[in-house]
C-alpha cells in the first residue's frame, strides 16, 4: 500500500466521520445557530478532506481493469475543493446573518430546545 493510498484512506475516514457528526449534530443540537454550526462543518471541512483524499488516488479499477487517473482530474478535484472551501462558509455566514436579521434568538442554557 503506497503512502498516498494510506493518506487518502485516512482523509476519507476523517471526512466521513466529520460528516457523520455534522449530521448527528444537526439532529441533536438545540437551536438554529448551533445546528448551522455543525452543518457548516460538513460543508467545509468534511468535503475538503474527502476531495483532497480523492485527489491522491492514482488508479481506478473497474471490473478488474485498472485505469490510471488523469492529472487533470486531480486538478479539477482540488479546484472544486477550493471553491467549496470559499463558498460554504460564505453561505453559512449569509444564512446566519439572515437569521439574525429575521430575529431568530440563540438558545441559552436552561431553555427548552427549539
Amino acid at each position, binding site marked *: 500500500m503506497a503512502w498516498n493510498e494510506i493518506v487518502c484512506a485516512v482523509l476519507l475516514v476523517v471526512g466521513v466521520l466529520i460528516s457523520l457528526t455534522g449530521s448527528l449534530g444537526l439532529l441533536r443540537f438545540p437551536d438554529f445557530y448551533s445546528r448551522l454550526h455543525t452543518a457548516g462543518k460538513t460543508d467545509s471541512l468534511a468535503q475538503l478532506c474527502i476531495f483532497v483524499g480523492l485527489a491522491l488516488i492514482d488508479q481506478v479499477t*473497474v471490473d478488474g481493469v485498472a485505469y490510471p487517473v488523469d492529472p487533470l482530474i486531480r486538478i479539477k478535484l482540488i479546484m472544486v475543493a477550493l*471553491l467549496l472551501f*470559499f*463558498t460554504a462558509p*460564505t453561505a453559512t*455566514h*449569509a444564512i446566519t*446573518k439572515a437569521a439574525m*436579521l429575521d430575529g431568530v434568538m440563540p438558545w441559552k442554557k436552561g431553555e427548552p430546545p427549539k
Partner: protein
Amino acid sequence: MSEVLMIDSVLLLLVAATAIAVVEVRSLYAAAMLSGIYSLLMALVWVNMHSMDVAFTEAAVGGGISTILLIGTLVHTEREEKKRKTRVNWGALLVTAMTGAALIYGTLDMPRFGDPNAPIHNLRVPEMVNQTVGMTAGAKGKQPPPVGWTPRQNLELPLGHKQAYAMQRAHATNEARLKEAGEGHGGHGGQKADGHGAEHEAGHDDAHAHPAGDFNGHVPNTVTSLLAAYRGYDTMFETAVIFTAGASLILLLRRRRRPGENLPKQQSANLTDQVILRVMCKLFIPFILIFGLYVISHGEIGPGGGFQGGVILATAFILYGLIFGRPELHRVLPERLTDILAVLGVLLYSGVGVFTMLRGGKFLDYAFLNPASPGDGEPLGMTLVEWGVGITVCTVMITIFNQLAEEESK
C-alpha cells in the same frame, strides 16, 4: 448487479423520499429547498446513468434557477400552505394509484433495464451516432435516403447558383477527404463498439484512413451532435420555448414603464450591506462567467452546451443582482439589452437556418455555411447555434429573475 444499479438503488430511494417530503411538507420554503435538493439528487442519478449533459442541466436548472424562481415567488406570496382538515385526499390517491398501476402494467413488457438488445439501441440511433457529422457527402456523410423513398427534387438543383453550390460541395468534400487521408493521422480504431447496420462496415473501412488524436470526424459529444445537428430543429424550438417563457413573464409581470423609466427604484434585496458576501461575490463572478462561457463553447467536445452555459452565465448575473441589488444589475445589464439579446439568441439560431436556406440548402443544413469546405460547416453551425441558445437562455433567465423579483406596480 452492475455498479450503476447499485448506486442507483440507493440514490433513487433517496430521491423518492425527497419527493414525498416535497409534497407533504407544509412550509413552502422548505418545499422549495427540498425541490432543489431533489433536483441535485436527480443530477446525481443522471450522472450515475452517464447522462452528463442532462445532469449538468438538471443541476443548473432544477437545483439553481428553479429554486431561485420558487423563492422569488414565495417572497411575493405566502410562506406556508394553509392547514386543511384532511391530510389525505382519497380521490386523488385512488386516481394516482390507478394511473400508477397502469404504468406498472406497461413496464412488464419493457426491455429490461440496460438491455443492449432494446430496439432503441439498435434501430436508428447507432446509425446516427456513427455518422461523422463533420462530413456531409460521400459514403459516411449524410446517407442517401433509404429505399422506398422518393425524394422531392430537392437534391437536383436545376438552376445556376445552386448547381454551382452542389458541384462545389461535392468537390470540396472529396478534397477534404483526400486531405484528411493524406495528412496521415492514425486510425481511430475500435472504440466504436457498435455492431449494427451497414454503417458499421463503412465505419471500419474509413477508420483505417483516419487520423489518431482526432475524433474520427465525429463531433465528440454525441449528445451535442444529436441536439444541434440531427435534431437541431427541435432545439431551435426549445430555445423558442425559453424565449416564450421570458416574453410571457414580461407580459404578465412587468410593471408599466413610464417613457424613459428603465430602472426599478426601490431596493429589493437587503443583503447589500454584507461585506463578506460582496467580497466573495466579486471574487467568484468572474470565474462563474468564464466557466459559463467555457461550457457554452465546449459543448461539442464535452458535457455542456448552450443551455447549461447559458444558465451558468445567468446565475452569475442573478447572484450579482441578489447581492448588489437589482438597480445595480440593471445598470450592468439594462432591461432593454436583455430583451433584445433574448431575441437575438433565437435569431442567431434560426438565422443560421435561414442562411443555409438562402445559400440553397435545406433549413439548418450546416454544410451550406461554408460551401468551400462543407465538412467545416457542421462544427461551425453547431457552435453558432449553441451560442444562440446560450445567449437566449442566459438573458431569459435573467429576465425571469427580474420579473419575479419586481414589485407590484402601484
